């Protein structure tokens, strides 16, 4: 996709810099001239939204870290100090806490968009795997961040999740002691989680750069899943078209964010986390944050601890091999009638797992968790490998331009290939 650079420095200083460090050229080629498929829908705006959410989390996080005290006896009070006595501290803290949820809402939409339109398929496997790595890093970061206020859910969430590693034979106990910095979740755990919670977002940032780089090598997928054939016809320049569209979607998303942040800031949290951590009192139900619930349900679906842990990690690991599990040559589910229905069944499965993750692990809930865990893996391990073999896809459009411009010319049934070659007017 990234063809020869079309950047022409005009000012003297720009020419001077271009000969030494062509950073403006990189920016120009990546965010101005970069060709974007002309048929992208609004689901493609979430990449930009995620970038801004990461920046927002880092900015609010750095400010919070200035006022926060990572110590078992002071953490809870220092967070409340931020809420009460730091100027606009409540804003920073609610923005950071709700921002984490918004980050996950956006990333889930982004991932499901990729699943639906087959964005993981060749030649975008590395791009996709980098995305899975970002997702994993995000989960680690969010988990450790939730521990920092040192409320009851922080403490017990940390206890449950770190204890998972004890399931591994031989090395398990050693790993857990290493994570804790002792023999139970305590001050050393809090301080190392704080340190790592500060570090990981910058690692995410690094992988995001690789993710964007890989994207700019292969170019974006699009709703038809048909590759760009002629750059002039099938694409439009990033600026102004994608820029303004992304900006609109971003502001709309921030309005959604603001609604939660200002009017229902504790809706996505858990009341128990306003109770200071107490190792002597276990909460009635220990539940993780909403974005971990589907994985939590998978974990608890298996009666065996090690089995549960392995299955939970497998639920994410399966995403890494997804590009090779899906045997269909057709990317977009829009042209795969059977796969599309499976996709929606899979989406419902994930919601059900989320709901089950919030229920106590007893009675009917365990049976249901096992059922939906099976369905979760069936989508990747049975549906996608087999459907590619016997599904008859619908007829694909000849090109992106045809799918967009063809509709204009003829009505239904018209031979789209006959549409006049469109000369996109992209001089602006």
């Amino acid at each position, binding site marked *: 996709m990234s063809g020869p650079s079309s950047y022409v420095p005009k000012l003297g200083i720009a020419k001077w810099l271009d000969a030494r460090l062509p950073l403006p050229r990189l920016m120009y080629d990546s965010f101005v001239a970069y060709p974007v498929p002309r048929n992208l829908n609004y689901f493609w705006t979430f990449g930009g939204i995620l970038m801004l959410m990461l920046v927002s989390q880092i900015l609010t996080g750095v400010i919070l870290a200035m006022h926060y005290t990572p110590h078992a006896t002071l953490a809870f009070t220092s967070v409340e100090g931020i809420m*009460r006595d730091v100027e606009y501290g409540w804003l920073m803290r609610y923005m950071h806490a709700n921002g984490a949820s918004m980050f996950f809402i956006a990333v889930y939409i982004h991932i499901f968009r990729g699943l639906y339109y087959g964005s993981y398929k060749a030649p975008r496997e590395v791009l996709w795997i980098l995305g899975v790595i970002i997702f994993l890093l995000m989960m680690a970061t969010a988990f450790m961040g939730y521990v920092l206020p040192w409320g009851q859910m922080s403490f017990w969430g940390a206890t449950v999740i770190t204890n998972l590693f004890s399931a591994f034979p031989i090395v398990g106990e050693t790993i857990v002691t290493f994570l804790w910095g002792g023999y139970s979740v305590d001050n050393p755990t809090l301080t190392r989680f704080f340190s790592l919670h500060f570090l990981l977002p910058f690692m995410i940032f690094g992988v995001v750069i690789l993710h964007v780089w890989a994207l700019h090598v292969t170019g974006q997928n699009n709703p038809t899943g048909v590759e760009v054939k002629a750059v002039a016809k099938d694409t439009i320049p990033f600026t102004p078209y994608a820029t303004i569209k992304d900006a609109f979607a971003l*502001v*709309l998303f921030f309005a959604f964010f603001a609604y939660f942040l200002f009017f229902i800031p*504790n*809706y996505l949290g858990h009341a128990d986390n306003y*109770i200071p951590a107490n190792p002597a009192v276990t909460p009635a139900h220990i539940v993780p944050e909403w974005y971990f619930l589907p994985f939590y349900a998978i974990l608890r679906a298996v009666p065996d601890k090690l089995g549960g842990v392995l299955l939970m990690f497998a639920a994410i690991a399966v995403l890494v091999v997804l590009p090779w599990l899906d045997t269909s040559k057709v990317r977009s589910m829009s042209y795969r009638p059977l796969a599309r229905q499976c996709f929606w069944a899979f989406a419902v499965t994930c919601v*059900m797992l989320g709901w089950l993750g919030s229920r106590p692990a007893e009675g009917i809930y365990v049976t*249901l968790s096992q059922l939906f865990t099976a369905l979760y893996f069936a989508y990747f391990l049975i549906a996608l490998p087999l459907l590619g073999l016997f599904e008859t896809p619908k007829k694909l459009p000849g090109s992106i331009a045809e799918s967009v411009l063809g509709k*204009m010319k003829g009505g239904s049934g018209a031979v789209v290939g006959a549409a006049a070659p469109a000369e996109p007017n*992209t001089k602006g």
Partner: protein
Amino acid sequence: MTLFRTSLAAFAAIMIGAFSAASLSPAHAAGGGTKPPAHDWSFDGPFGTFDRAQLQRGYKVYREVCSACHGMSLMRFRNLSQKGGPEFTEAQVRALAADFKISDGPNEQGEMFERPGRPSDGFPKPFPNEQAARAANGGAYPLDLSVIAKARNYERGFPLFLLDIITQYQEGGPDYVKALLTGYEDPPKGVELLPGQNWNKYMAGNIIGMPNMLNDGQVEYPKGPDGKSPVPETAKQYAADVVAFLMWSAEPHMEQRKSIGRQVFIFLLLFAGLLYFTKKRIWSRLPEHAPGAAH
């Protein structure tokens, strides 16, 4: 194809089964307490504000009743005059603080001494430590109330929990605490309570250490011009007032948050609207988005 249809039908059947099975299974409110009734709070919704007079009455109830056992370690007297709270005058706050003897020091001789409270002092602790508190309360530890209104909630269930996003219901904590304060009953027949145990309809598990503390006429409220209190001096009213006070102490900047929120939200919507039309204008340069393009 048929196989596929069958499996889809099976999936649908599983979904229906899942929902009905789950709705038949025993309810999981946090351990068996009755769901509290919703109270009409002045601070609910996007335009909600605290009622100053109510917060001032609530502080009086806290001070005369609750503070005997419950501390509020995050509160300072100066908070009582800050904007968005009870908004006592600074002179009133100085007088309220001066009512308490605060231990300070060490002085230049290295000795601790007592002095009258100042607005910068924290609310005094009822007990020097947890052990003393337990010893005085039959083994129970009276909780700190600073953020209690946010630290309690009850399960809303489906579909209420989704509707709460739109109705902006955030008062699960206050509703629960208010119900709890007035939820004392005689235990059902056959239930023997141990000394120091009380029966409360709303408590998870129904058994609570704290006895009923609010009784009609117990706290004297400031009188209006006609010589009577503008609100009834009843246990119900005391409960509502003290819970409003506790909600403010849990979320002292709520009014500022909602007021900024309204401005930010409207700004973002307007900005999004402008961007939408700009986007349409820019995209109309493309043939498929040109005005008159057939779709």
